[in-house]
């Protein structure tokens, strides 16, 4: 019985996401079924969590579940009818040749292994005490996080100020199952891995124009020890890898939209962009970075008006969440001081130790193997040998988060800011890991330049 309930939760979530995906692909004649499935998951988790948050202010229990279910089914039907009217056809691209089949099989085996390993492990510290706690309390309260949770200083350790994208995706499963079930709730995380790996393969193949490259980088993804075994990795249910998947998707479609007159790529970029701050607080930083990169890309393509429009959803979501937290009198853990010029001046002596910790972390073989070495080589190639718009945007999308994340420790309030950095920085690096694999994939064919060359 529980499996049927779980299936219903997944189907409704994917139905809503598929509806949104099909609406985005309105003008496409041919739809890649794998791509649609992956995007359906990302949009589905975003839509369901947002619906639960908004509708949870007015309804609770079965009524809330019914309203969200009806909205999911309706969105799915609208998307499907739009696709039928447009006469678009689904297509399943199969690997060609022995190498592609071997690499595709490897990815499938890796995804199955991640599911298996995920079932063997418990939720990690954050998985339980930051994400599951919100889903559990919301479930007990009929579908919305109680106001007293936000204002209770005794539970500030669980970061009540963190957004609800991930916990409310778990909550959706709990509502269908009928209890806050830590084992089944955790299943969303290997799904994020599967979606991330497949989207990485798709985007790297499209951007490099070689399918085997996409399959190769996606196949190499789990060979980063910290991603599969680390304390912030996929199997312990942290939000960092899912955030990395949203970031990869937004960035990948932004790069793909360069020089192409396909509105759907830009729409996918804008949709994932809006969801970034809803997945994790650091998503706000990634949002600003992708807005900056989108602005540059739009300015060069003379699409500034369209760009200004796509900022709306993200800004509304950010503003609404901040306002909601203010109204709830949220008590948050003060890990960072307010970033003022005075604090920066006072803590300038931290710059060298922070840089040392940064380099010592990325050189840690037990966490990253040779991943950052490969990334460094790819970035050097993109920045110095193959300077074009796409390469510059991609390199910035990898370097800027690392620089900004490192800089935040200048304002750390921990007694030892290096201990603070050592404990949380590796997880933050996971946000850019899929995007860095994309960069590695792009330089693998050793391209010599194309029509998107930047004039200096």
């Amino acid at each position, binding site marked *: 019985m529980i499996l049927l309930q779980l299936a219903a939760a997944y189907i409704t979530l994917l139905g809503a996401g598929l509806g949104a995906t099909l609406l985005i692909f309105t003008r496409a004649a041919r739809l890649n079924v794998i791509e649609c499935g992956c995007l359906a998951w990302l949009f589905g988790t975003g839509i369901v969590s947002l619906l639960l948050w908004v509708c949870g202010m007015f309804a609770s229990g079965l009524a809330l579940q019914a309203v969200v279910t009806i909205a999911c089914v309706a969105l799915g039907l609208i998307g499907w009818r739009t696709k039928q009217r447009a006469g678009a056809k689904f297509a399943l691209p199969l690997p060609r040749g022995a190498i592609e089949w071997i690499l595709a099989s490897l990815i499938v085996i*890796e995804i199955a*292994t*991640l599911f*298996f*390993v995920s*079932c*063997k*492990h*418990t*939720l990690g*510290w954050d*998985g*339980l*005490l930051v994400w*599951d*706690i919100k889903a*559990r*309390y919301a479930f*007990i*309260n009929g579908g919305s996080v*109680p106001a*007293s*949770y936000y204002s*209770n*200083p*005794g*539970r500030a*350790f*669980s970061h009540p100020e963190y957004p609800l994208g991930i916990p409310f995706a778990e909550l959706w499963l709990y509502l269908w199952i009928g*209890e*806050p*079930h*830590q*084992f*089944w709730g*955790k299943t969303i995380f290997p799904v994020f891995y599967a979606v991330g790996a497949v989207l990485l393969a798709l985007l790297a193949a499209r951007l490099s124009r070689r399918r085997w490259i996409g399959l190769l980088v996606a196949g190499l993804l*789990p*060979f980063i*020890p910290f991603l*599969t*075994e680390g304390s912030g990795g996929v*199997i312990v249910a942290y939000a960092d890898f899912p955030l990395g998947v949203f970031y990869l998707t937004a960035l990948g479609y932004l790069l793909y939209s360069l020089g192409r007159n396909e509105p759907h790529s830009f729409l996918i970029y804008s949709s994932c962009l809006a969801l970034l701050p809803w997945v994790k607080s650091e998503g706000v930083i990634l949002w600003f970075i992708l807005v900056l990169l989108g602005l540059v890309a739009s300015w060069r393509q003379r699409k500034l008006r369209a760009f200004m429009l796509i900022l709306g959803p993200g800004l509304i979501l950010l503003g609404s969440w901040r306002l909601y937290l203010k109204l709830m009198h949220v008590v948050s853990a003060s890990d960072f001081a307010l970033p003022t010029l005075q604090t920066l001046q006072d803590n300038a002596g931290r710059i060298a130790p922070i840089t040392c910790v940064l380099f010592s972390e990325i050189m840690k073989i037990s966490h990253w193997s040779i991943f950052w070495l490969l990334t460094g080589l790819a970035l050097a190639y993109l920045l110095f040998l193959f300077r074009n718009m796409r390469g510059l945007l991609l390199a910035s999308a990898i370097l800027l988060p690392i620089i900004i994340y490192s800089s935040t420790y200048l304002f750390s309030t921990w007694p030892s800011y290096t201990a603070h950095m050592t404990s949380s920085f590796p997880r933050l690096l996971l946000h850019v890991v899929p995007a860095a694999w994309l960069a590695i994939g792009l330089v693998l064919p050793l391209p010599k330049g194309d029509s998107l060359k930047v004039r200096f």
Partner: protein
Amino acid sequence: MGHAVSENKTGPIEASHTIDNYLRTLTGLRNASQRLDEVFQSLPKNKPLIIFVRADNPPSGFLGMLIAYLSWPRDVRIVKLRNTPVEQEVAAIDPSSAAGLAFCSVSPPPSLGKAIRLGSNILLVPVPEANP
């Protein structure tokens, strides 16, 4: 990934799968979430639970958070013991303002009387409700 594949075993497929695992490791208590829930239900309602943990001991702090997680919807207050003795922190609490005092890897002052032992590292001292 080989290490992750070989360690642990699948299941049990239970709702409190994770928290029971952690509590069993830290306290030796089986079905701990259910047991703790029963004990918390017996405490006076509408009053907070005060949890004492050792600031220099991460397992103690983690245990305190697990208790806070399980004791919902009751308000909690976590007191981190640094250099001050536990007696001094306990003395600063108004008994009528708390439902109970939970000590995680901390020995409660003998003056508090009999405590309920929950596994090897949790001691709970219920505060009796004052008669009107």
